């Protein structure tokens, strides 16, 4: 009977997968950029190459994976349906992919047309997404910290892309001045607000679920997102006052506030991991542990920069590498290797009575191989921030990481299609 059960409300397979299969291409592009122009990428956070690489990883990779996951997570975790998921995902994915590529081109060639294109396309992607999911996300009967975290993350995404569009217009010469303050806010809302709130909201759910840890304390799951929101709003208001603008108070407040939130979340997650109910140290566990250790370092560097303990010049690239590759890429890789087989398994259940075990769609060995490659990549990138000539190695490893992700996802899809088309055939 199980095979006859209806799964009609699950989003179609193509909805999340199109995002997950595009993300590795942006990782590959970022790796290629590091190979070709690595010294310029690591010379300063403000070089066109550094900005292009940063946005290939954020607006390219992270946004693809996070929005793809959101299409899947909203109905599953929050009971919130997405309006016309196939159509919406098609539009968002197209605008996001073209917008991410246009943004990298805009930085590399300082071209106003590309900046206009990027701002328009990324703005369109986010506007369509917000319109499509808002009704479900605000009306869902589901309660709890995850739903509130997702709502906050969506609002922060709108602010981030709005600030990003303003920055693009400053770069293209349409708007004047104030870009330093705008850029600080763009980074704080993007990494602390959108990505940070999404990370914690999803963590409340997936860390106990997949790593078999106890739940986060209820007060913590409510307090931490509220504190992050308060830091961002107060920091932005201080930034808007004349004293905040010139004196660096807003930057300090944002840096220290977000550093405290990051340290608290990393510490809480590592503490839960030590208390997990089944002592399985799989690849997903390792990716999360690495991410939380990197987040601790991010918190330390952020606090050091705000209190003047560290020279500012060298911190940018190290913070960038630790936050983007160390924290977010680690978590996303670990989660993709859990989520993609799970989605494929769910869809296989519609067609096959006894689908193969989820763990056979992407084997643990392949995931561990990627973990080790990713760890080597992170170390190489950190070394490149101290000694830029090694950026080529970091770039090659980053490109290899993108390639391996694509190969592993494609392998899982092939296994899915083999079972779907010939249910009697056993997997190799």
């Amino acid at each position, binding site marked *: *009977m*199980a095979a*006859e*059960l*209806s*799964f*009609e*409300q*699950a989003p179609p397979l193509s909805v999340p997968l199109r995002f997950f299969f595009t993300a590795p291409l942006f990782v590959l592009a970022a790796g290629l950029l590091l190979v070709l122009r690595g010294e310029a990428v690591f010379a300063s956070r403000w070089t066109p190459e550094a900005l292009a690489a940063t946005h290939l990883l954020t607006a390219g990779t992270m946004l693809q994976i996070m929005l793809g996951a959101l299409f899947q997570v909203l*109905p*599953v*975790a*929050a*009971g919130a349906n997405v309006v016309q998921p196939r159509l919406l995902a098609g539009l968002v994915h197209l605008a996001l992919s073209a917008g991410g590529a246009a943004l990298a081109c805009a930085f590399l060639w300082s071209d106003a047309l590309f900046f206009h294109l990027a701002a328009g396309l990324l703005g369109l992607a986010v506007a369509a997404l917000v319109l499509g999911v808002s009704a479900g996300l605000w009306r869902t009967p*589901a309660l709890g910290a995850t739903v509130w975290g997702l709502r906050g993350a969506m609002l922060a995404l709108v602010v981030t892309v709005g600030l990003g569009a303003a920055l693009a217009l400053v770069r293209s010469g349409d708007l004047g001045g104030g870009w330093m303050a705008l850029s600080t806010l763009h980074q704080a809302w993007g990494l602390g607000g959108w990505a940070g709130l999404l990370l914690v909201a999803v963590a409340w*759910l997936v860390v*106990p*679920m*997949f790593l*078999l840890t106890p*739940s986060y304390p209820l007060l913590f799951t409510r307090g931490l997102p509220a504190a992050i929101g308060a830091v961002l709003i107060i920091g932005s208001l201080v930034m808007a006052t004349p004293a905040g603008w010139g004196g660096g108070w807003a930057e300090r407040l944002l840096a220290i506030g977000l550093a405290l939130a990051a340290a608290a979340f990393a510490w809480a997650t590592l503490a839960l991991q030590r208390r997990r*109910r*089944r002592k399985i140290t799989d690849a997903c566990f390792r990716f999360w542990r690495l991410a939380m250790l990197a987040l601790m370092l991010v918190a330390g560097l952020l606090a050091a920069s705000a209190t003047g303990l560290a020279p500012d010049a060298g911190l940018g690239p190290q913070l960038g590498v630790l936050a983007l590759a160390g924290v977010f890429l680690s978590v996303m890789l670990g989660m993709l290797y*859990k989520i993609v087989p*799970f989605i494929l*398994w*769910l869809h296989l*259940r519609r067609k096959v009575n006894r689908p193969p075990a*989820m763990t056979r769609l992407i084997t643990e060995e392949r995931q561990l191989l990627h973990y080790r490659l990713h760890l080597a990549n992170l170390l190489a990138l950190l070394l490149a921030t101290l000694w830029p000539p090694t950026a080529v190695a970091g770039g090659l490893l980053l490109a290899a990481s993108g390639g391996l992700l694509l190969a592993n996802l494609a392998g899982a899809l092939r296994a899915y299609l083999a079972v779907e088309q010939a249910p009697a055939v056993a997997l190799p």
Partner: protein
Amino acid sequence: MAEQAGDGAAGAPRVIDARDMVPPEPMERTLEALDFLERGEELQLWLNREPFPLYRILNTNGYAYRTEYIEDDGRFIVHIRHAGH
């Protein structure tokens, strides 16, 4: 303890304690158990979260469910029966 068979006709429900299982094992075990759920019998699923995807499957396949939240240990108990029983 993963699964405890109840005493059947005596009325003790069959319980799937899925709190220490990694997805998709809880859903897999539940769907398997539904194959053998008799009319009037209750299946209990214990989890540390609400299983929204499972709710949909239950709704569209003629099962009724009621979810109970145990505040002491943060456990959700999903009581499942055939609809109308």
